[in-house]
Structures are given as C-alpha cells and as structure tokens.
C-alpha cells in the first residue's frame, strides 16, 4: 500500500461526500415536482409525453398500482429487448454482421439488463450489433436505473408522508427521473469520456496492420454514450467483454477516477434526498455514515490483499502486488478501489479481473454483494435495501428496551418487520440455494475454470452477483450454458422483484400511518450509537448467513495459498 494510493481513496470519498447534498437537493426538487434550472427546457417535453400518453401528472397512485405500473413497464421492456436480441441480424446498424442471440442467452441477457444486473454471458464486441447496444442496452440502462431511483423515492415518501394512501405517480416519476436526472448528467459525462479517448462512432471495426506485420481488428462503436449511463445508473454492463478494463471503455486513470465517482454519485445523493424529504438531513447523513464505515473497511482489506500479492508471485521474487488481470494505467490501488466500489454499489463494471484477485481481495466483493449491496448500493436499490436493514435495526433496538420502535416519526410494527425480513431473506435463499445445486450438478461443475476452492468461489460469486443484481463475475466461469443462462435469469428476477414488492408494501403501509412526535423515549437515529447498531446488525445478519459459504471458498483458498498449495 502506498501513500499516493490512499490519497486517491480519500480524495474519492471527499468528492462523493461533497456531491451528496448538491445532487440530493436537485433530486429532491425533481421528485417533489418543483421547478429546476432545466425546467424551461424540459417542461415542454414532459408535458407532451403526459398529454400523448393520457397521464394526469397530479393524480397519484396507491402503492399497489404504482408497483403494477412498474411491472407492466418491465413486461414491455423485456419483450422489446428479447425481440431485438433475437432479430439483430435482420436490423440496421450492424457493420460487424452479428447474428441472432440464442434463445437461452437472449432470455438471460434481457432479464439481466431489465433488472439492472447486467450480468453478461456474452462478449459485447463479438456478439452484439450497434443497434442492440444502443436501442436495447443503453436504453434499458436508463430505464432500470430510473426504476430503482423512483422506487426508492416512493419508499421515502412512505416515511415522509402521514395518513395518505398514495406514494406518487410511477409514470411521472420515471419520466422526470430520465429527463431531469439521468440524461442531463450523461450528456457532459459522455463528452468527457470521448475526450479521454472512448470511441463514439457508428463506423465499422477497423483493421490495422501492426508493426510486426500482423492484422489487428479494432472493435469500435457508440461506446461513450453507453458507458456514461452504465456507470451513473450502476448498471455495469460492458460494451466490450473486458468492461472497464478495456482501454476503449476506460482509457486513462482520470476517466477511471471520474467513472468511480459516477458509480456512487446518485446512490449517495439519495441518502440526502431521504433526509430532506423526512425533514432532517442528519437522518440521511447517519445512513451514509453507516455505509461509509463498511466501505472503508472493505477498501482497506482489498487494497492490502492485492498490494501484498500471492504466495506464488512472492516465491518467484515478483514484487509490486498482484498484477495478474490488472491494467498498468490503474495499478493496484485504483483496481482494488474500483472492485470495492463496483460491488458496494450494484454496478458490476470491472476495471480488473476479479477472478484473478487474491483470495481475500476477491472475498470483499463477494461480501459486499452478500450483504445486499447496501453500501451506497444500486441507484435506489441500495437505499431501499439499507432502509430494510434500518427497520430490522430499529426493531431490535425496540426489543432491547421494550418499546414499540419508531423511525423518522413512524411506528415500525409487525407488518413492516415481516416485509423487511421477507425481502432480506430472499437473497441468501437464491444465492446459496443455486450455488448448492450448481456444485453438485456435473454440467454446472464443468463450467468452472479454476480447480480447488477457487472453482467453488466462481460459482458462489456468480449466483451472489446475479441475486444482488450486481453483474460482475469471476469471469473464468463459462456462463453461456443452458443451466447458467436459465438459473441466472431466475436468480436475477427474484433478486430484483422479491425485494421490490415487499419494499413497496412497506412504503404503502408507512404512508397510511399517522406521524408520531418524538419524545424523550424515542431512540435517536442520527447519532453514532445508531450508526454502530446499524453496522452491527448488517454484519451479524450477513455474517451468520454467509460465513459457512465463505469458509469453504475464499477463506479455505487463502489458507491453502499460505501453504503454497496449487490446484
């Protein structure tokens, strides 16, 4: 570990914290329907969309109608994306003449982008036409991100409102999120990325004659516009197979730094939106503080492990850390930091190959995802995931003192706690359940690229990543098989919607409750005691659930690595 490495990490945190109240204020105004600096430009577009689609922007929805509208929107999105992937061979913008995706792979890919997972059982540059990339994937990157954000906003409204039956209007929220938040941020970001070197063209792949006389085909495309939303929307699906490790997707250490900030920017800002909407920004800062504690702990372990390198490298006299699967322009610090950020948020873009990380370095991303990506998390999804843990924490605190727990003026009762547990339990069920099936099903075992504990870790990582809607991978695993395509699609679907529906039920139930005034007996939820309790609850729930699975994977591998064993 170096001083300059830690300086980059601290600067990263400082910038994210500085952006939080700024973006938080702006997003709060957007979702409260107030005017913003962009309103003169965007208001007419918004009005036209409402008029043509017959939406009354002032009519709000019950939580169930809101959720059903969201699901209907996703049915359309799935149908359109699946059709596009299957038909891309007949459609324009296809200079590399890519043919149709196989049905099982198209199913997996469509679910993957719909659920904001962006798990990829294919390599972009060798599989997809430019049309599929932009009309299919870029577009779905926007909509799945917007969906996450608006659901979090609906849940926040549940906390913030009292004695009402509605949580907002899905059509208005999704339109405003796309028009006012995502697009205006993506436009300057795209141009910055092109300036740094990311291609943005519809021209065909270029054939170069190398200095030694070989032929090199350079894959190109409308990359920058997709990378911008892939990062801001915590989608993470690479235009190219190597994702953000590819020099055309992340050409410089500066583009890398800004991409890392963009992964966290909106998720962190949503904690501030929460604080503002419930009337006390410190409530938001307390949640961000709990996230920050878990984040820094993860970065420290991962950076230390990667800088330390592996036993094999040390015995050969190689110093400078574990560079297998990493890029020189980023080095160890920025690669380890990126890995923690991308799995703390549910981004899943990678700038180094996690499969080649050390055992402990690679365990941190797994833990981040197992905890449900509540450290900043996916845009929206991270906040509603964290609020579920807050409910459990408040409930435990209430049990300890024998009072009905309250949070931001709402009584937390049996219904909320049951729904929160339902949402929290789905993740271990699908992560560990499917991993258990895969490691005893011979065709699934055959997909492992590495032997020994690491092969098992590849499978555990795959289902953990998909259930948490992350999308990064221990990439050695051959995922494009009927087994992984189908189980993966089911995993991603359950991980997304089994979490959303209980969260929305909580939103509805909270909105309909009366507000109670804070008294001397109310547990304060803005101080270090609450932050500590929240972090403790997360770690205890996560630790008890996942320790056995980690013990036979990364921990076993670390111990055998220390003895010099190889597989």
């Amino acid at each position: 570990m170096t001083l300059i490495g830690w300086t980059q990490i601290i600067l990263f945190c400082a910038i994210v914290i500085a952006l939080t109240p700024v973006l938080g204020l702006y997003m709060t105004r957007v979702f409260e329907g107030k005017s913003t600096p962009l309103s003169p430009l965007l208001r007419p577009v918004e009005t036209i969309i409402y008029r043509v689609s017959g939406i009354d922007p002032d009519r709000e929805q019950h939580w169930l109608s809101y959720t059903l509208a969201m699901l209907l929107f996703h049915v359309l999105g799935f149908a359109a994306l699946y059709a596009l992937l299957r038909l891309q061979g007949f459609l324009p913008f296809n200079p590399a003449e890519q043919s149709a995706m196989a049905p099982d792979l198209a199913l997996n890919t469509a679910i993957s982008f719909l659920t904001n997972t962006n798990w990829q059982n294919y390599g972009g540059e060798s599989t997809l036409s430019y049309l599929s990339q932009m009309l299919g994937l870029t577009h779905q990157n926007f909509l799945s991100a917007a969906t996450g954000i608006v659901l979090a906003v609906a849940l926040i409204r549940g906390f913030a409102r009292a004695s009402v039956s509605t949580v907002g209007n899905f059509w208005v929220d999704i339109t405003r999120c796309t028009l006012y938040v995502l697009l205006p941020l993506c436009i300057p970001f795209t141009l910055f990325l092109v300036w740094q070197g990311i291609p943005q063209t519809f021209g065909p792949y270029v054939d170069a004659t190398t200095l030694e006389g070989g032929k090199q085909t350079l894959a190109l495309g409308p990359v920058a516009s997709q990378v911008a939303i892939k990062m801001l929307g915590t989608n993470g699906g690479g235009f190219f197979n190597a994702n953000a490790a590819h020099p055309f997707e992340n050409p410089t250490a500066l583009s890398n730094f800004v991409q890392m900030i963009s992964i966290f920017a909106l998720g962190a800002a949503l904690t501030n939106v929460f604080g503002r909407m419930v009337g006390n920004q410190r409530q938001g800062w307390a949640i961000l503080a709990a996230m920050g504690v878990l984040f820094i702990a993860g970065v420290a372990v991962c950076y230390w492990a990667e800088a330390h390198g592996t036993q094999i490298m040390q015995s050969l006299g190689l110093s400078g850390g574990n560079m297998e699967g990493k890029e020189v322009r980023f080095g160890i610090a920025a690669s380890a930091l990126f890995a923690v950020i991308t799995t703390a948020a549910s981004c899943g873009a990678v700038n180094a190959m996690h499969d080649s990380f050390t055992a402990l370095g690679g365990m941190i991303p797994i833990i981040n995802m197992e905890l449900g990506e509540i450290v900043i998390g996916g845009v929206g999804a991270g906040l509603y995931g964290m609020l579920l843990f807050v409910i459990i924490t408040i409930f435990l605190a209430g049990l300890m003192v024998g009072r009905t727990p309250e949070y931001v003026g709402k009584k937390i009762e049996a219904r909320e706690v049951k729904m929160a547990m339902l949402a929290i339990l789905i993740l271990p069920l699908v992560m560990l359940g499917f991993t258990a099936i895969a490691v005893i099903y011979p065709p699934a075992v055959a997909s492992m690229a590495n032997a020994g504990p690491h092969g098992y870790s590849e499978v555990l990582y795959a289902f953990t990543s998909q259930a948490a809607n992350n999308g990064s991978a221990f990439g050695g695993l051959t995922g494009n098989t009927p087994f992984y395509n189908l189980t993966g699609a089911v995993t991603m679907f359950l991980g997304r919607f089994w979490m959303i529906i209980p969260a929305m039920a909580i939103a509805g139930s909270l909105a309909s409750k009366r507000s109670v005034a804070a008294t001397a007996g109310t547990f304060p939820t803005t101080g270090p005691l609450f932050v500590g309790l929240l972090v403790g609850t997360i770690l205890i729930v996560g630790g008890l659930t996942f320790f056995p699975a980690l013990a036979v994977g990364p921990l076993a591998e670390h111990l055998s690595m220390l003895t010099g064993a190889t597989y």
Partner: protein
Amino acid sequence: MLKDLRPALVSFVALTVLTGLVYPLAMTGIAQLVFPAQANGSLITKGDQVVGSALIGQNFAEPKYFHGRLSATTAPDPQDSTKTVSAPYNAASSGGSNLGPTSKALADRLAADVAAAKQDNPGADVPVDLVTTSGSGLDPDISPEAALFQVPRIAKARNLSETTLRALVAYSTQGRELGLFGEPRVNVLKLNLALDRLEASKPSGS
C-alpha cells in the same frame, strides 16, 4: 391494469426513442465534431495505413521491439468453431486469463516466464507487470521498470547503445495523471514507433 396500457406504451416508446436513439445519435454527432480523433478510436496511421490505436496494445514478439503485457485473448479455432485458440491482443475479443491465486496453470506460467525473462536481463529483478496478463488483454502500457528491463535485449538486437535506449524510455514515460491518479507508464506501441524512427535516423553502421 388495462387503463395503464396507454401510458405504459406511450411513455415506453417515448423514452426508448429518447434514450436509445436520440441520445446516442446526438452524442455521436457532437463527439465526431468536437473530438473526431478520439471518437474514431485514437488511430495511429503511417501514410494511409492504420498501424493501430494509441489506446490498444498490440502483440510484440520480435527481440528488437519492446514487449507489452502478456495477453490472454483468444479467437475462434479455424478448424473447430466451438473451440478457441490463443490469439494475443485480439482487439475484437477482449478478456483476461481469469486464473486464480492458487491456480497451478498460473504458477507454472509465471515460473516459465520469469525464467525466460531472466535470460534477457540476468541479475535484474523481473517487473511483475512483464509476466502477468492484463485484465483486457489489450493493455497498451507497461511500467517504466518493465521497459528499462528490456533495454539490454533491444540494444543487442538493434546495435544501439543502452544509454540512448534508456533516454528514449525516460522520454516516453508518462507520469501519473494530474500527478495523482493511476501509475506511471510507457505506451509500448508509441515507444516502438519512436524506436523505429530512432533507428531510421541513425547513420548506418554506427
């Protein structure tokens, strides 16, 4: 739910057109106008021939060139399309080795490459980036140490002085971005182009 069908269809189509067509097309238009070189892949040309991209590494195996990172990229086997064969620096199919920390294949590969590298420059420590594969398989850079390590081999192959080559490496080294981000590095393709120019300008026989 039926009454939601119209808002669903209309807003879906509107947002699809906006984010999936208007946005990428407009961005392409502006990018091509403002940053044409980058938007088209930062291509390097020699005459009217494209020799590569400044951002994409290429395979160097000859002793007279600086070598880049190892690359684990593959290409479909011409004999059997269900299989792949090793094809270093295949810029149409990026990817890493994905070998884990306790992989025997990785241990054997590292041992062999360290032994081979030591023959090039006995006595010096082998830089780790010279014997590891990059994440993309297309890493355009190596560390300055990895470039300096190769100087003796190239000096011999080209009959150039080591001092000249060291100066060339120093000249080609890019520092951290803004003095802070990432790591110092040398772009291998640009370094080799400079090397070819250097030799071309050298009076013959010296």
